[in-house]
């Protein structure tokens, strides 16, 4: 029984832990409004890595991409139109 973890998985895992360290560190650096943008950008990067490597999206065709993206796209609609009311109230 010989088995080694595949390199892409290992790489993704290390990258994820690295990004986690980065995001926690950056959270303590005063950047004003950019703190939350940075945190969310790093979160999105991490999610992309998980999707591409762990969930094997990098090996899938456009149909799976559309299915994986549909949820996010509609989440975008919910947040966009939902927030529109709250941000433009007088």
């Amino acid at each position, binding site marked *: 029984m010989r088995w080694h973890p595949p390199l892409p998985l290992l790489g993704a895992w290390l990258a994820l832990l690295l990004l986690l360290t980065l995001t926690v560190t950056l959270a303590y650096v005063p950047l004003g409004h950019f703190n939350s943008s940075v945190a969310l950008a790093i979160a999105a990067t991490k999610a992309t890595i998980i999707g591409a490597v762990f969930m094997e999206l990098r090996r899938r065709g456009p*149909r799976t991409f559309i299915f994986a993206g*549909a*949820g996010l796209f*509609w989440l975008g*609609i*919910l947040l966009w*139109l*939902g927030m*529109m*009311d*709250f*941000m*433009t*109230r*007088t």
Partner: protein
Amino acid sequence: MNEDNYLNAGYTLRSWFFTTDHKRIAILYFASLIFFFFIGGAAATLIRIELATPQADLVSSDMYNRLFTMHGVIIVWFFLIPSIPNTLGNFIVPLMIGARDLAFPRLNLLSWYLFMLGGCVTLFAIAAGGIDTGWTFYTPFSTLYSNSYVAVAVTGVFIAGFSSILTGLNFIVTIHRLRAPGLTWYRLPLFLWSLYAPSVILVLATPVLAITLVLIVVERLLGVGFFDPRIGGDPLLFQHLFWFYSHPAVYIMILPGMGVINELISCFSRKAVFGYKFVAWASVAIAALGFLVWGHHMFVSGQSLLASLVFSFMSFVVAVPSAIKVFNWTATLHKGSIRFDAPMLYALAFIGLFTIGGLTGLFLACLAYDVHATDTYFVVAHFHYIMVGGMVTAYFGGLHYWWPKITGRLYSEYWARTAAVLIFFGFNLTFFPQFILGAEGMPRRYHVYPPEFQMWNVLSSGGAVILAAAYLLPLVYLAYSLFFGKRAPANPWDAPGLEWQTPSPPPEFNFETQPVVTRPPYQYTPDFRAEPQNA
């Protein structure tokens, strides 16, 4: 009648309640839906009888509020949403695409059990004392003020929501993966496009309702929540979340109905549907744009004026694909060879009623008029024209059309036509006066009302009684046909769809051999070769 069909594949209770056959599950759904339809319908009839006079005479105001809530909750979540997808869709989809079952048969069965569990929990809430919030569960009334069984009812709807999600998921994957060889997307019957589009809504909108209902329960249990104005929460946030689901849900109800109409119109005018691609993509457009209009329920709620503006604009935009469909159906009639069997009567009624419903929708999308008309009987009439005049009519049309396939029996054409005409007149008599009431300013959900509104209310109530009787009629003659009807041939309408190329009722695995599709749909012969079967 062929010897081995899905109906005689087993007679035990087990063979029904643990079946994974999509056709049997469709029958299970059908039986449950009839039950819920009549509960919801009975509540509606009581409401209309109460409203025949301006005073309270039949029921107390608490009882009245419980009645209209029960009517709304039961009819929306336990009849309209599952109606065509879960009965006709479940039965017909695999047959239409030449598959032996849906992609996930056990999920399909689980979906029915969830539906029944949700239904039972909701019925329990009603039996235990009822719910008085209206089907919209507006906060903070539902969370902090109502003393009725809101949490229980909400749990029931929550569970039923997962049943919807599983059904939608099943249809999407089935239509993607299980089509017969040669059945490309543009060769799909339009019924399938009209089931695919709302399935996307089921999958993407229902979870938002689910979480919103969870938040209601949390707020009721803890006494604080996101929608609680006392701690700086926002009741309008609830409305945004609720309508993010509930407006697209309207399209979950109407799109499958439109799908049925495509099949009926083309079959009974012996012509392909005019402008296939436009109609197909109109379904997708309606489903997609339907997510961008929810705020038109909130024009007077105090949402920002800019938001109202955007939502109003999108509401007008979403009306365009609906208009396309109506015009294409009419164009299909042109130079057809039209026969007026019962399903066709329903289809024609659908076009008329849906168009009235759609056009009055423009009144409500129009910001300034909506200020006056919203929350009045104008709205009630408008959405009943869509939901009942449109969706329920389409459901009855589809039921008659596929009845020979489903049961292997023919019903009485005479009674079927009588019922169709009665429903049409009863419906218009019930709901048309409500437009006038609304324009005059009678608010909805009123138990007593100023006497000057009485005349139109009496007309409406009279129509409701006719409508209730007319809805009972099909129950009688369809049940009669089950035992005494003539045996149906495989293809009583002389239609080219795959579902008609297998015996009636279909065998357990639908097709003896895997069908291969080589043509676009709706290749009708110009004239009926088969004689009218049901006369």
